[in-house]
Structure formats: structure tokens, C-alpha cells
């Protein structure tokens, strides 16, 4: 027992560093994804057919291909045809961002559509433009309803980052792998890795439940 604890304690600094990276990548990606998701979400409900097609194409392509393939494509595939070199970190952020954005588009769209269309009409008849009505009246109501789905996407993205171990990014999962590759204590280390993921995700779930109750989203 003591030995198990010691093994975990020895690995802990490395694991916590990995956990930090996991959180960092997820937070950056989610913030970026929110902008893309919002823009493409609004695209998907406009009258413009072109904008709707752009939005649908993006969502379909991203959701229709495995995340691991996207990660490998961005990190290994892209630099081989266009002249860019991405660090594993930027490639990881791009992949997680794009993926989360594709799901957030749907969340934004559903959230905006859930607001009674009388709200848009009331805003427009006062004299607000479409954009003003969106910003001042529709989105503030819609976003409140979207919070649980946002948090859920956050949780999904945190889990997704573990796939970034495939491109050598020392996030939580790869940090664990590097430790047991050296000490051969896969059971203890992976157990600790799992516990750390669980702590992040479970706190987020609690936070989401608390928010839901506070905002009274039906």
C-alpha cells in the first residue's frame, strides 16, 4: 500500500503538469470555439443560403470524421502540403477548437431557435436592427439556456485532449504514459491519471448543476 502511494506521489508533479496543460488547452480551445460556434451558429439561421451552406459543411465535415484523424491531419498532414510548421500545442488547440466549434454551432443554433420568435419581432418593431436584436435580446436569453450544454461540451473536450498524446503533447494522458514507460507501474499511474480526470470533470458537473439551479433554466 505504502509503495503504491509512493509511486503515485513520485509521479504526481509530472501528472499535475500534464493536467495543467490539459486544462490550458481545453480552456483556450473552448474560448476560440465559442466565437466560431457563435458566428457559424448565427450563419446557420440566416436567410443567406451561402452562409447556411458554409455552416452546415463545416459541421458535417468535422462531425463526420474521427477526432484522432483530424489531429493527425493537422499535425502531420497539413505541414506536408502547405508551408507551415505547427507545434504540437498549436496543432492540438486547432484540433480541439475546430471540433468543439462544430458541436457548439448546434448548441448555439438550438439555443437561438428556442427563443420565441415574438422576441425578434418585438425587437425589430422597436427599431433595432437584426444584429442589435440578436445581441441585446435574443443571445442573452439563449446563452442562459445554453450553459448546461456548454459545460457538457467542456467536459467532452477535456476527454478529447487525451487523444493529443498521439502527437506527443505532454498533456495528462501522455504524462502518465511517460512515467509508466520508465517505472513499469502502469496500474498505479493510470489509476492516478483517471482520478485526476475525474476530479476535473466531476467538479465541472457540480458547477453546471449549481449554475442550472441558480439560473433556473427549465
Amino acid at each position, binding site marked *: 500500500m505504502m509503495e503504491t502511494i509512493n509511486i503515485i506521489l513520485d509521479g504526481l508533479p509530472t501528472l499535475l503538469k500534464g493536467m495543467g496543460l490539459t486544462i490550458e488547452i481545453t480552456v483556450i480551445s473552448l474560448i476560440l470555439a465559442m466565437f466560431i460556434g457563435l458566428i457559424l451558429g448565427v450563419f446557420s439561421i440566416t436567410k443567406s443560403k451561402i452562409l447556411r451552406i458554409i455552416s452546415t459543411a463545416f459541421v458535417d465535415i468535422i462531425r463526420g470524421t474521427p477526432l484522432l484523424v483530424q489531429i493527425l491531419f493537422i499535425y502531420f498532414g497539413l505541414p506536408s502540403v502547405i508551408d507551415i510548421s505547427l507545434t504540437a500545442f498549436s496543432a492540438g488547440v486547432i484540433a480541439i477548437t475546430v471540433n468543439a466549434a462544430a458541436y457548439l454551432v448546434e448548441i448555439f443554433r438550438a439555443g437561438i431557435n428556442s427563443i420565441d420568435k415574438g422576441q425578434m419581432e*418585438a425587437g425589430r*418593431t*422597436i427599431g433595432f*436592427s437584426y444584429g442589435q436584436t440578436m445581441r441585446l435580446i435574443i443571445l442573452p436569453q439563449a446563452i442562459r439556456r445554453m450553459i448546461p450544454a456548454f459545460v457538457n461540451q467542456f467536459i467532452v473536450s477535456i476527454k478529447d485532449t487525451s487523444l493529443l498524446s498521439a502527437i506527443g503533447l505532454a498533456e495528462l494522458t501522455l504524462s502518465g504514459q511517460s512515467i509508466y514507460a520508465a517505472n513499469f507501474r502502469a496500474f498505479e499511474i493510470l489509476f492516478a491519471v483517471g482520478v485526476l480526470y475525474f476530479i476535473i470533470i466531476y467538479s465541472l458537473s457540480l458547477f453546471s448543476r449549481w449554475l442550472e439551479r441558480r439560473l433556473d433554466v427549465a
Partner: protein
Amino acid sequence: MKMIEVNNLKKSFGKLEVLKDINMDVNSQEVVCVIGPSGSGKSTLLRCINLLEEPTGGEIFIEGDNLTAPNTNINELRQKLGMVFQQFNLFPHKTVMENITMGPKRLKGKSQSEVKELGTQLLDKVGLADKADVYPDKLSGGQKQRVAMARALAMEPHIMLFDEPTSALDPEMVGEVLQVMKDLAEEGMTMTIVTHEMGFAKEVADRVIFMDEGFIVEQGTPDELFNNPQNERTKAFLSKVL
């Protein structure tokens, strides 16, 4: 002066032709009530007048400005037209005061103290001075509709449009809403009101328009239309509702 002028207005939804050939004028300070059976196109007509629906054909002028011309600034023109909906459509995430002041503050560049004063004045007028800081979900239907009127009036519109403002209300709340509308009429507001309240139309309207199946079938003073209708369809409709 003609506040609203509608010429040969047509509106279809897909194959369904809802407005067939509407010609109507509303003069300054005139109160016009629009009546007619369900589905006759009353709401659609009102919604075309502020371009919530895009007309399929014809022209609409608001104080001489062509609403349907491509270079018209619709957001500016709409500020002249206040609209009150059957379902109130208050903004649930804003207080009563914010509901009222949002428009003049953002669109007319008025200061916070100016709009606050305006809001207080309007709430006073609709008898809800004590509700400034509550959220709409704490109000009764009649109170919501009075706030909706205050919100529309805050933009200092030249014309007020009402689409069955009392139809979603419990009977005991109808009176308080109609009273505010009567007060407005007495102040000389130009109003176009789609309504099922025949008593109100008789008492307040300068002119009553009867619509059926996408046409204006008959119009006249309340006395002419209610006491001496000429058209068979008007007679049939009135015999059902009076």
C-alpha cells in the same frame, strides 16, 4: 395628412394568397379598427404595414415614405410605428423599466436620466408606476400588455398598431388595457387596431374596416358599419359576433 397609405397590397404564403388587393388609408389622429373572421388576413395586413411580413405586391407609404422601396431604412421607419402584440412579447431578461427604456436609450441616444424620466412618466400613464423594477414574469397579463404599450410609446411613434391586444387576456383584465388605448385615442394618437372587441370599436373607432378572405369588404363609421351594413358578408359576420 395620410399617415398610412396602402395601395394594391398583395401577400401570399407559398400558394396561399392571404391578402388579395388591399387599398386603405389612415389619416392623422384617426382611430381605425379592423374586424373580420379568423384567417381573413387582419394580422397579415398589420404585419405588412411594419414589414414584419414582406408584401408580395403593391405599395405601402408611411407618412409619405415608401416602405417597400429598396433604399428605405426600415429600422428608422419602424421607429415611427409602435406595435403591440397579442402575446405581449416583453423581454423577460429585462426589468419593466429596462423594457421601456432600451429603445430610446440605444436608438435615440438619450441619457440614462432622460430615459428614466420618460419611463417613469409612461409607467405612470399606464398605471404601473410601482412596477418599474420587477421582471415581466411577475406581472399579470393585463399589466404585461400595459407595459408593452409603454414600451412602444417610449419610441414616440407617430402611429400605433395593435394586433388583438386583449385576446390573450383573462376577461377581467381586458378593461384596463382598453382604457389605456382609449386614453391614447383621446390624446390624438393615430391608431390601427385589429380587434374582436366590437363594443370598443363602436365606442372609440373613427372608422371600422371589415375584412374577409383577403379583401376589405366594407368600411365606414362605426354607426354605418354596425347599424347599417351593406354587404351580405358583413351582415353575416356581425350577426355572429354582436
